[in-house]
Structures are given as structure tokens and as C-alpha cells.
């Protein structure tokens, strides 16, 4: 699935085509395949997807899907998703009505020449160093998708060994009403 365009963070220039669907599903074998298979066969674009057991009840998991609501109307995506028998509830979070976070981990090669500037980058981003050895550091940032984008860009000039992002999770912004089905 091709991402529609780079994500630019929760700012004024956030592309409104990206919607966050917070989907409560039954925690049963094959449920993720059902969700992913639906997106594939209907030609819906997934930008990112994160899954974890639901907080409230061991019977359920929460799937947070960032979808491209411009290539397919959101109503169609939600309608088809809701027909999956294992899908219990869907909450549509428009980016402006949500708080979102994701996790970034990156391992960077370091030497005496770049260490100081790298530490600045890490500090400016609000990231933390969680592992070090003689030639590299592993950096973690739990931040907004835009913050993760910024850090990723700032690290471009360094020699990256690995960089992983989790995809985002989101909750309704307090005082905003999410539309649930």
C-alpha cells in the first residue's frame, strides 16, 4: 500500500485526507488478516496500522488505522469495516480532533566529530538515548507524528543503522466528540 504523501504533523498544513480509525476488534485468531484483507481487496489505502490488546477487556484488541480518506470516501471504508463480524466498534478521529502519538527508535553511528551535534538533535527533539556502545547510540522518541517526522529529517545527515516507527495510536482530544459507529 503506497502512502498518499508524507505526513506533515498535526499542524495547520495537516492533509485532511488522512483519518484515524480506532477500531475495537475481537481478540481472535485471524482478525488482523480479516481487517488487512478487507483493505487490500477493496483497494483502500492504509497509511499506518498499530495493534495491541485493548485496555478494558482481554476479549478485545484495538487496531489504530490511519487511512487515506481521499482515494476512498471514509463512509465506504467505515461501512465495509463495520460489516466484519469481528469488528465491535469503530471510532473516526479526524486529526484535528485527536491527540496522536507514535514511537520512533533509531540506531545512529557516532564518532567524536558528530557526537556533540547529535546530542543536540536528540535533546531538541525531546528524545532519549536508550542504548549505547562504542560506535553507536539508539535513540527513542515517543512523540507526535510530526515530531517523529522532524526527528527523522534531523537524523538524515547522520549515518543511520536502523530506524523504525510504530505507526500512531490516538485518542479523542478532550472536549471534542468523536463519531462512533
Amino acid at each position, binding site marked *: 500500500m503506497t502512502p498518499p504523501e508524507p505526513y506533515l504533523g498535526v499542524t495547520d498544513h495537516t492533509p485532511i485526507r488522512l483519518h484515524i480509525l480506532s477500531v475495537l*476488534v*475481537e481478540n481472535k485468531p*485471524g482478525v488482523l488478516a480479516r481487517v488487512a484483507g478487507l483493505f487490500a481487496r477493496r483497494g483502500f489505502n492504509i497509511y499506518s496500522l498499530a495493534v495491541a490488546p485493548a485496555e478494558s477487556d482481554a476479549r478485545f484488541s484495538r487496531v489504530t488505522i490511519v487511512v487515506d480518506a481521499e482515494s476512498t470516501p471514509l463512509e*465506504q471504508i467505515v461501512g*465495509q469495516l*463495520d460489516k*466484519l463480524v*469481528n469488528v465491535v*466498534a469503530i471510532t473516526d478521529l479526524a486529526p484535528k480532533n485527536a491527540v496522536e502519538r507514535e514511537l520512533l527508535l533509531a540506531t545512529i553511528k557516532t564518532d567524536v566529530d558528530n557526537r556533540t551535534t547529535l546530542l543536540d538533535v536528540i535533546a531538541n527533539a525531546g528524545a532519549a538515548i536508550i542504548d549505547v556502545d562504542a560506535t553507536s547510540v539508539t535513540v527513542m522518541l515517543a512523540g507526535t507524528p510530526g515530531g517523529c517526522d522532524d526527528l527523522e529529517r534531523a537524523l538524515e545527515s547522520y549515518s543511520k543503522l536502523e530506524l523504525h516507527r510504530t505507526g500512531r495510536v490516538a485518542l479523542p482530544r478532550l472536549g471534542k466528540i468523536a463519531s462512533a459507529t
Partner: protein
Amino acid sequence: MQLTGAEALIKSLEQQGVDTVFGLPGGAILPVYDPLLDSSIRHILVRHEQGAGHMAEGYALATGRPGVAIVTSGPGATNIVTPIGNAHMDSTPIVVITGQVATGSIGTDAFQECDITGITMGITKHNFLVQSAQELPRAVAAAFHLATTGRPGPVLIDVPKDVSQSKMEWWYPSTIEEFDLPGYHPEVLLDEEAVARAVELISQSQRPVLYVGGGTLKSKASPELLAFAERTNMPVVTTLMARGAFPDSHDLHLGMPGMHGMYPAVTAIQRCDLLISLGARFDDRVTGKISTFAANAKVIHVDIDPAEFNKVRRADVAIQSNVAAVLRALDASSATPKSLDAWWKELHGWQEQYPLAFAEPELTGPLRPQHVIESIAKRAEPGTIVTAGVGQHQMWAAQHWKFEEPGTFINSGGAGTMGFGVPAAIGAKVGRPDKTVWCIDGDGCFQMTAQEMVTARSQGVPIKVAILNNANLGMVRQWQEMFYDERYSQVYLSADLPDYVKWAEAMGCAGLRATNPKEMDDVIDEANKINDVPVVIDFRTDASEKVFPMVAAGASNDDIMTYQSYRDAQ
């Protein structure tokens, strides 16, 4: 009470009121076939698993009760994938039970293993891989609940061999809560506000059309439709999936819309100012080029499945409901359009100017396929069930047979599955032994599932099959004639190979043949007298006959070709 999983499975089917299953045994499903011997359930032994699936569909469509098929793992399961896909496209309630290798062997590429729940994920309403014998009753109860409620559809239950062999303590779920379906809520409250907006649109309308789809049959809304149409005087069109939902003989009926629809039905939709869709889904075979479809119409879209709203065509008013409930609510509010006199004058003009037509039958033959269907229909008792395969013969059956009752036309719509007709006819006849069942088939279709005539004979299911034998894959030939400069590529089948009469006789059926109109009437009379064995008639028809009216694929419905206009252009 201790039972094996297999015994619990059969007992669960009995609890669901299942009287007939269609199937074929094999290794992984062997344990289930043993308690079947002691059950009141009738088992129809098919000759190929595809037959079992289509029979279950035919049974469901003829009776309104879910059809059930049982097959083994691996190739048994993959052979029934086509009927599952077919049932999914046409929202037909069937429950398919597949054997699976033992739980400990799943994932090891064991003999006759295949991931049938994975394979059918996209073409079932839901499927289950049962993990323990204790869970079997829940899976069966949930499967029937899912298959028959909301928008109906196929549900598959995959039963590993060790699950059917192990012991369980008998129980059966008695409440919906026990089905353990926390995400499934098929019951809907009628949106009164949406109904009020629909009433408003109706009251402003001068050129309405009732666009009746398969959901009208699924919700058994024919009485409500008749009452609503007669009270409001609105014209009715019935899609391929809704033939029989409204009597063809009724003055308000314009016939079938779509690619091979009646000129007045197609054109009424194009020119209407209000399109009231009742359980239809704006299929491309109905809409033609979507941007020009009913371009000036407001749309009221009634469907039990809200995912159909705005999928193809934007709805001005969308009402999630079964069709019957909405029609009752509209009637209760006395929703009435403006005077339709001018509209009917126009509609009657199209009916007079563009009647359904075909070339005059010639006395020496070959037969006109349309003439064959009209002749069978004329000699059939009221309420006769007609099934069809897919292709020209199917369209001619939909056009030329006059359907008066729900459940009398059974065919493959969305999937377009060739070979559907014969097994569907057997399933229909098993479910409705009191009815005459004719399968209008093509020679190409018949060859795909003909082995089930052996099933029909051995199980005492006396269906009648009319093969419109034009020696060709006729619909493909028609497209090659019209759109590929008559360059015929791989469509010729031969009228004589196989010899359908001998083949029928070899399968224990009566085999008849007609090559001209006189013989045609005689063999139909003869077939109608045979009620102890299945009958197959080889009607030798003219390969150059084409289905008209026709809207070319991707063309606008405004550019509909009729028999007359095509003939005059040649």
C-alpha cells in the same frame, strides 16, 4: 450427555431445523458422516462439491431457508469456493461445513490440508475454524444466525478431524448472547426522519420509478411492494435478482432494467426524476456508464446494508432497513407523487414503440431460442420454478419467461457463474418437490456441471433441463460478432459433441431433441408428461441469435440497442 464433536455437529443441524444437506464425504469429514446415518437429515450425495454448493443455493432461494453443504478438506473445500463466492455476490444464505486436518497438523502441509478460512475470508459473510468440540454448537448456531439475518450470505464452518472425534458435553445456545458475536447487530431501528424526507421527495416527484432489487425478495416484501405500487401508481422495474418480486403481467411493470433490459424499463430510469431503490445495489450491469445513469434523478436508497449507500451512486435519502418495513412506513404516511398521467403517457409510448422482439421463427428450423423459452413457459403450470446458467440463455429466460411469484427465478447474478443452472435446479426441486422445476441452460453451461444429472436421477429429483444448444459459448460469440469484427476466438463447441440425448440417457435421464418448431412443441409436451426421471432436451438453436435490447459494456443506457434498431443498422 456426552457426544462426539461429529454427533454434536449433526445434532446442532437438527436443532436448526435442517432437513436436507448436500455433500460428498472424504477423509477429514469422515467422522461427521457416521452419525449422519442415524439422523433424520436427508443427505444428497453429489458428484462434485461445486454441485453441493449450488444445490444449497438453489434450495435456499426456492424455500427461503438456508441451504447446507458438507464437504471434506483440501480439494473438497476448494471445489466449493465458487458456490461460496456466488452466494456472497447474490446474498444467498448458505452454511458450508468443511472438514479440516487435525488441529495438531494445521500448518504442516498435511495431506488434503488447505487454509479454507483464509481462502474464503473475502467471499463469506463470516467463517469459523472450530478449535474444540465443545464450541461446535455455538459455531453452528452463530453460522445460521449470521447467514439468515441482516444482509444474508454464506457462512463457512471449518471442522478439524480431531474436533469432530473428541468428546463434548452436549449443550446448545439458546440466546443470541451465547452466540458470542459482540460486533454483530443486524437489527436496525427505522430512521423516521429519513422516511419523512423520502415522503417529501415522493410528494414532489412527477416521474418516479421503483427500482426493485434482490433485497425485496430477501425481505419477502412482494405484498408490500404490490400495495405501495398500486396505491401510488408508480412504474416498477425488477432487476435480474428480483424477477418475480412483482408480477410481470401487472400493468405497472415495465420489466427488467440493465444491459439486456426492456427498453421502457431502461429508459424510464434514465428519464425519471426520482429513483426509489428497494434492495438494489446499482450494479454496473444495471447502471451502464454511471455518470449518465438516471442523470436528473433524486435517489432514495433503501438497503439493509449501509455500506451500499453512496458506494456507486450518491443517495439523496438513504434508509437502512429491510424493504418491507420501509414500504409499510411509506404507506402509513400516505406518500403520494404528483399526477403521473404525463409520465405514464410517455412510458406507454415507449412500450408501444419498443416491444421485446425477435426474428420470426422459421418452420424448418433452426429454433429461435426466445421462441423455445416462450413455448416452455406457455406449457408450464403457474408457479413453475426456473433456474438458469449464465449467458445468452439466462438473459432470454429473464426476458421471455413471465414471472408472477417470488422465488420462481433462480440464477447467478453478481458472480455470473456458468454451470449454476443444473445443480441449482436440483436444490430447488429438493426443497420444493411440489413444484415443477425447469432449468433453462446453455450447451456451454450444461457441460460444466452435467454430472449432477446423475445425482438427480439417483436421488429421485425429476428436474427438466432445456439446453438451448447453439453449439457456441453464445454470449462471448455475440460480443465477438458485435465488438471484435466477427473474429470468433475459442467460442465454437459443436452441436453434436457431446450427443446430449445419449449423454442424458447414460446418466439415467430421459433424453429428447428438437430441431424445428413442430418438434419443439412435441418434446416439451412429452417432457411435461415425464415426472419419474429427470429430462434433458437438446434444442438446436440458431447460433446467430443475439440478446436484445443491449447496452454495450461501458456505454450509456441512453445508447440502448433494440432488435429493430440493430437490424435496421445492418
